């Protein structure tokens, strides 16, 4: 990934990001100055104990909350100084969210759910449907297009939610415990899809406390009490089995 970093702009850049709730005696430092960049093609996992600031980081990155100080730059636009209209457009066009509870609209089919953000963006219903079908097809979910959420398994719903998060040319997907409600096999298929979307050029942040899912990421960032305490980089796996791990 280092070659990529030199030649490409980050999709998401967090600069000295601080979020403090309340004041005085009840002050809570949810984030204490986070620097993080996520590049095209990169999946970054965020791990840390409960209350360490993982969800706060994601909501700030997605423009759903405002930092106390610091910058959030998405595809070159500082969303902390953008107008409300600009921010709304950026949220619709550039950023996709996946939450633990899939948040599909029960009255809409998979294709309609995926088409919705495009329609909200002012694209004709026909075009939105075509791009939704294409997105589902590309992710191997074509056969689900006309099913309603309650006709799908949890894993299928979550994969449709990822399709919705990345429909159009949105390139940033923010996933907060997307595998939380799934069994491990199904969780794995959701992760495989997220990984594939990043391999195809999207940038992703995955909040998880499951080490097995974090291991799909290119980088794992550890948060504690609102600060990054450590991060791993991906190494060359070939050296692994001949190094220290071979003796385990």
């Amino acid at each position, binding site marked *: 990934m280092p070659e990529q970093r030199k030649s490409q702009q980050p999709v998401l850049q967090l600069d000295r990001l601080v979020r403090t709730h309340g004041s005085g005696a009840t002050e809570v430092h949810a984030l204490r100055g986070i620097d993080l960049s996520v590049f095209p093609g990169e999946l970054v996992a965020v791990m840390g104990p409960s209350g360490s600031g993982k969800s706060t980081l994601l909501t700030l990155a997605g423009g759903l909350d405002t930092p106390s100080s610091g910058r959030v730059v998405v595809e070159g636009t500082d969303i902390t100084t953008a107008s409300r209209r600009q921010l709304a457009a950026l949220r619709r066009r550039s950023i996709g969210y996946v939450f633990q509870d899939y948040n599909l609209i029960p009255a809409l089919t998979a294709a309609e759910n995926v088409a919705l953000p495009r329609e909200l963006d002012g694209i004709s219903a026909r075009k939105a449907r075509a791009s939704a079908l294409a997105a589902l097809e590309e992710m191997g979910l074509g056969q689900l297009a006309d099913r309603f959420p309650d006709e799908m398994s949890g894993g299928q719903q979550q994969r449709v939610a990822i399709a919705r998060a990345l429909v159009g040319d949105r390139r940033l997907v923010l996933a907060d415990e997307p595998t*939380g409600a799934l069994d491990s096999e199904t969780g794995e298929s959701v992760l495989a899809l997220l990984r594939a979307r990043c391999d195809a050029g999207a940038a992703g942040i995955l909040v998880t406390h499951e*080490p097995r899912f*974090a291991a799909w990421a290119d980088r794992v960032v550890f948060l504690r009490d609102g600060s990054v305490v*450590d991060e791993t980089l*991906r190494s060359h796996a070939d050296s*692994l*089995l001949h190094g220290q791990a071979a003796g385990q």
Partner: protein
Amino acid sequence: MSIRHGLLALLERGPRYGSQLRTEFESRTGSTWPLNVGQVYTTLARLERDGLVAPDGEDAAGHTLYAITDAGRTELFQWYERPVDRANPPRDELSIKLAMAVGAPGVDIRAVIQSQRHATIKAMQDYTRLKATALAAVESGRSHERDDVAWLLVLEQLIFQTEAEARWLDHCEARLVRLSLPADRRAAEPEPPQAAAETPAPTTTQPRTARSRRG
């Protein structure tokens, strides 16, 4: 790790010579447990002494071949059926290290835990990538499919093992943080679900099988 039984299992498929056994053993396990030829020959010598294998002539190139005996076959199938012995859990350096770090002067146990967590998660990232490659090979039906499946299973075992280690480290940290709170606050804090659900005492020799989610 039972090299003896590994070699018997390969010989059960037909006579083989020493370096061939080594190559096949490694391609099965993806070089996870590298063998040297010396280990293979000393193991073959012991198997022969115990009547579990017997020399079986030479191949065209003059390699001495070994074949499994009936007694060897009986031993092999008993091995497949027998659960792995847990009476003496292997000494684990990490457990010993953390046990020593508790209350050790000048040692920040959370830093010890984090440095191990880093290494453990990184190993998992690497295993996961190897697994994705192995899975692609198996699903494409390419090459030595049997070896690829065997390698996949070995990798997944490594992933489960490192996962258990990572979970245990999280548990240790949560436990230590909790124990370091003043007693009055501790009483007020709800018991974290994980701490409640997991086997607390490291003194037992039972394998830890309890798996729980943290909030």
